[in-house]
């Protein structure tokens, strides 16, 4: 039986080889191959997400602290993005997404999926999918109902996210500006940056 990892590897190879799997106007049926998964280590919720997605995507897991992407950028991302625009995903502070998105300038890379997760002081989490929910088959209500299991479900959804239609143009996300948060709340951001 083909497991999810093997499926994703096959999908990645097929995508890299330029296999055309559908009409130009249709979203690719293949999940996006991910080059790396980034998580903000100062929040426990990110670890389940990172472990699950990195395994599913056979991608390295890069750890960020306090939103600082410098090491990940210099050591892993910049060298590969100079050669080819590969996809990344993460559950990080919004500033990390903003920095990476800014660094995509003049490339075909765009933020294709973007969701916000407001961690409330009482342990509840408010989810808001801002972009790409359909391609990830991600449902905000489902995330709410999952309670503390939301990071793993989110990772599953990101793992099967479809590449955006190449004719679908995408502008900047709103990662630079954060929503107003309740007292004591924190904001995590999940995202995919990928070529269009």
């Amino acid at each position, binding site marked *: 039986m083909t497991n999810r990892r093997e499926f994703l590897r096959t999908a990645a190879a097929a995508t890299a080889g330029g296999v055309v799997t559908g009409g130009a106007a249709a979203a690719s049926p293949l999940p996006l191959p991910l080059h790396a998964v980034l998580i903000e280590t100062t929040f426990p919720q990110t670890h389940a997400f990172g472990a699950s997605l990195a395994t599913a995507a056979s991608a390295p897991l890069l750890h960020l*602290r*306090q*939103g*600082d*992407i*410098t090491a990940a*950028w*210099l050591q892993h991302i*910049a060298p590969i993005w100079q050669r080819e625009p590969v996809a990344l995903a993460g559950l990080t*502070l*919004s*500033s*990390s997404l*903003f*920095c990476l998105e*800014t*660094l995509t*300038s*003049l490339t075909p890379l765009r933020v294709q999926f973007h969701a916000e997760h407001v961690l409330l002081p009482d342990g509840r989490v408010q989810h808001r999918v801002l972009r790409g929910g359909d391609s990830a088959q991600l449902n905000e209500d489902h995330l709410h109902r999952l309670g503390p299991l939301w990071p793993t479900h989110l990772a599953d959804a990101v793992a099967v996210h479809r590449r955006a239609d190449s004719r679908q*143009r*995408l*502008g*900047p996300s*709103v*990662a*630079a*500006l*954060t*929503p*107003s*948060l309740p*007292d004591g709340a*924190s904001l995590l951001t999940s995202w995919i940056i990928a070529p269009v």
Partner: protein
Amino acid sequence: MALPPNVNATDFNSALNAWRQTVGAEWVFTSDEDVAMYRDAYSPWWDEPEERVASAAVAPSTVEQVQAVVRTANQYRIPLYAISTGRNLAYGGSAPVYSGSVVLDLKRMNRVLEVDERNAYALVEPGVSYFDLYNHITEKKLALWIDPPDPGWGSVIGNALDGGGGWTASPFRDHFGAHCGMEVVLANGELVRTGMGALPNAKTWQHNRWGFGPWVDGLFRQGNMGVVTKMGFHLMPRPEAMQMMTVRVSQEQDLIPLVDTLNLLENQHVVNGSTQLSGSFGASPAGAPATAWSAQAPVYGPERVVRAQMEHCRELFSRIPGARIELGDLTRVPLDEAALARVRKVNFGIPDLSTFGLLGRSAADPSPQGGHIDFSPIIPRTGEAVLEYARFYRENLAAVSEGGALRFLGPVFMTNWDRTMVAMIMFPIGRDKTHNARMRAAFVKWVELAAARGWAEYRAPAGFQDVCAKSYSWNDHALTRFRETIKDAVDPNGILSPGRYGVWPKHLRNA
């Protein structure tokens, strides 16, 4: 697709086609989504009709292409807005001052043309970031430092032209002040080299910044008289060591001799690092000695010299009654792994992006908005002026902040430039348009209040450059009128960055 103001669709399409011929179709951006990537991420008018946005963007890769793009713009009277990397966040980013301008994106011109270790200089193109120059120097194993600002992803040229500063030693952390020679495309497409670069086969372009005759480089700082395509910079020879002294004083009035001593040490070039001045603005922790103000004084240089300079610093600071002096560990360069993990990297010439992590929730900023704009007036570098500014801040805070409803960050007293003190206040910008509108009103109010005291900004967000420029009104705005005279002469069609830093071409003046 939006049209530039006062340009018809036929002419704009003709210009776009010409630019596609010049730079390649893939480097001319006209779709709404692609052009939106040039929005100012921290715009205080985000998603409002007044947000300043581009109509298109064109990204040349050579000087010749820049010349051709400018000539086409002149032919069709299309306003251009040149950016290097466009990451001047809090001061406008990559968005034009004049909405509808076409962004002239120079990021593809990213060659480090020369780094001379013996004479410690570099010659770079506008798309070279601090990361790029740092990587180049590191890969070549050159004993040189760059001077990165916070953050390090910006253009070396762009930051200098915007008036940016860094965090290592003087004179290198004054980025425009550390430049030596420019190459500039004028509005008519002609290419000019400044200083010694005007000599055919020049051998000393980066050895002497003044050259012969009137010096024109200043026209291109925060300017719109040309498009800078090359720029030389003096670099800091890698020092052996750095050491920091911290001085704390208990009484507010002790700030006066504290600043005087700092000034003397800096003006004598004993302290050459970027000093920091902090006021507690509140009570000290229980049991701790009261600290009204503290100063940090870093010194870079050969280890023996640094130690001797620190002794001299200690002697002078000890003359302030009650001053408590703490000498930090001497840090040797190059940094080992332990030191690298401990230090603030920009103080050691290492670019990074860690500053963005500081924009999250904290005790000082319990309601972070993500974005911000910066109010950066220059005040006299005296203790009396700092105390006056602190009083000014406290006296006006309630009214400008709507009784405390609006939270500002600061003031932060910065001394990146020799003999200069900047008293910065940050205004958070977020997604809430009502909040942003209140912040805009507060920003303008601060500008006006400060100007009434004789303090004005050295740099301003794009949407407030007119307001700030009007502060400089001595003798019926004589300086602005002189700049406009030059603008009209060198850019008669007003195509280069109209409105940048309050300088408008004739046909848009008073519009």
